[in-house]
């Protein structure tokens, strides 16, 4: 069953098209990742779907409700964690959660139990009387999540939830999301981190307001035709320049490694070896690897950063 659907959803700000004809559908209980660099239109999409921004054209439905005509009805059913989640720094952990529980009219009966579960779940129990402003970045994110979950939403919107959060907290955060998935909560998450995108069931690649691809992670990686070669050599920068000039395939630099996307594996290997030998650069290692999402981004997107 589709929990979320958009039809040519478009939002313009003056001359800028922030989101261009987005059409996608998300199944119930799915973790869907909206992946793209800064300025791709991720936050705009989130705001359109949560009904806090009106589309310029196109339509969207969340849990069967229209985002413009039935905005207020949607708000009871969704949890939204904006990019800078609106915690009140002078309120304690407990008071922040209580405030959102009141706004969503969570019944007093059973509220305590749910609160205890959320606090335990996010390891915030020992800090319940601490003011939110004095929490670490990771704890703030988890408190934001707890606030967005207090009313047991059917759909959860998370806008770059782990931006600037340490890796341990990120892992904790995802553990919580997987538990929610067990409860059939649909999760729509945006991220600029590709390793995070790989944790989603399906992803949509967003670039300059346009959806470039939408599939499972493996499906998106499969969009890369040909083979991906990884090589190590001395002087990787001149080597990259050399390979680009030789037009062997698309070249991306990752630290001291180079990724080269070639059409045919065997011929590609020979061409790389020949080009480097001609340029006098010693090749240390050359192997064929599984593409990562980063490779998809750097080679599939026009203007994608390497």
């Amino acid at each position, binding site marked *: 069953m589709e929990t979320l659907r958009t039809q040519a959803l478009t939002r313009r700000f003056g001359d800028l098209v922030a989101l261009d004809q987005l059409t996608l559908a998300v199944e119930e209980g799915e973790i869907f990742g909206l992946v793209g660099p800064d300025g791709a239109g991720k936050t705009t999409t989130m*705001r359109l779907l*949560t009904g*806090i921004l*009106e589309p310029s054209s196109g339509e969207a439905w969340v849990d069967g409700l229209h985002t413009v005509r039935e905005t207020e009805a949607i708000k*009871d059913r*969704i949890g939204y964690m904006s990019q800078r989640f609106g915690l009140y720094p002078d309120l304690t952990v407990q008071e922040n959660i209580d*405030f959102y529980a*009141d706004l969503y009219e969570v019944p007093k009966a059973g509220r305590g139990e749910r609160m205890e579960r959320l606090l335990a779940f996010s390891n915030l129990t020992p800090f319940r009387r601490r003011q939110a402003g004095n929490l670490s970045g990771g704890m703030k994110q988890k408190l934001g999540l707890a606030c967005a979950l207090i009313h047991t939403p059917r759909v959860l919107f998370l806008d770059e939830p782990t931006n600037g959060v340490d890796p341990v907290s990120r892992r904790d955060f995802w553990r919580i999301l997987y538990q929610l998935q067990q409860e059939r909560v649909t999760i729509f998450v945006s991220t600029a981190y590709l390793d995070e995108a790989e944790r989603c069931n399906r992803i949509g690649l967003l670039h300059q307001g346009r959806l470039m691809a939408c599939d499972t992670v493996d499906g998106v990686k499969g969009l890369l035709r040909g083979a991906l070669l990884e090589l190590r050599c001395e002087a990787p920068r001149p080597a990259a320049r050399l390979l680009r000039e030789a037009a062997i395939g698309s070249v991306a630099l990752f630290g001291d490694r180079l990724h080269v996307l070639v059409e045919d594996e065997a011929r590609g290997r020979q061409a790389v070896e020949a080009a480097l030998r001609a340029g006098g650069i010693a090749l240390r290692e050359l192997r064929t690897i599984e593409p990562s999402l980063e490779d998809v981004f750097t080679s599939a997107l026009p203007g994608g950063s390497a």
Partner: protein
Amino acid sequence: MSGFRFSRLRAVAHKEFIHVFRDPRALGIAIVLPMIMLMIFGYALTMDLDRVPLAVWDQSRTPQSRELVSRFEGSRYFSLVASPDTYRDVEEGIVTGRVMVALVIPVEFGRQVASGRKAQVQVLTDGSDANTTTLALAYADAVVKTYSQEILVEKVRRLTGRPPALPLDLRFRAWFNTDMESRIFIVPGLIAVIMMLIAALLTSLTVAREWETGTMEQLISTPLRGSELILGKLAPYFAIGMVDMLLSVLAGRFLFDVPLRGSLLLLFGVSAVYLVGALSLGILISAKAKSQLLASQFAFVATFLPAFMLSGFMFDIKNMPPALQAFTYLIPARYFVVFLRGLYLKGTGLAELWPQGLLMAVFGAAMLILAIRSFKKRLA
């Protein structure tokens, strides 16, 4: 779709109370600022004129001239600060501001008075401040006239053996402010000005702060309604505003000795209505500005200046140009100033002051509705 829920309003009010009480500086400003303003304006803003610095150049040096000078010295309106003996000294005193009024008694003054001829005295004043000068001149005129009258009476008594009966005798009595102290008149109006400013300043930050910190985006993604948010936000500031009002009334009574002749209950009832209007105006400004700095600056300009200058507190509305007079009807402080003065000085009640009360209620309701409408559950 859920309708208005009191529980959500209460949740917002509870949160706002926490904001206020966990920020001692803000709370301190909310309580101390109106008191400071009341002190400064209450003591400094006096329209009474006494002890006008006076210079006397007595060229005559006769018993008659000394008598005139002693009458000036004896008046509580003048205080002799200089006795120049050249015009240059007189001029210097006035130019430097040490002297406001200079009395020049000519050489022949004593002789002329003694012989019953008409004598002239010259009064020079610093006319830069027209109002004060007019007052000072009126005082000087009164002193000279009294003296001149007494000379006349004495002359008649000497000729006829008994003093003449003066044809007219003015007996006046000032009602409501029998001692004619401007303080009694100023303090009630001052309360209206201060309450307007404080109320709008208090709330001008609340909505803008939510926009600045990003909590507003979160709030509009919840089922919270505009009326719940705005009324919830008003609650704690209304409480603080009423405490400020109470402190102002107490200060007026015990510090400035301004008696309240009307009903205390009516005073607080009308203050509550006025306060709702002022607080809502602050919220409206805050919602439109979306930035705390801009909102507080705008709230200051939009409330303090009109309330101070155009409410009839400082300047009589009847003396303003017609266009400005028409504009003053939009300023709620105008009604509250009249209401408070009536209540304090004359002890009048709703029977006389209902139009002001009604207009304040209209203003309050309009501002509240605009404030609630200003909350849109959409970005951009």
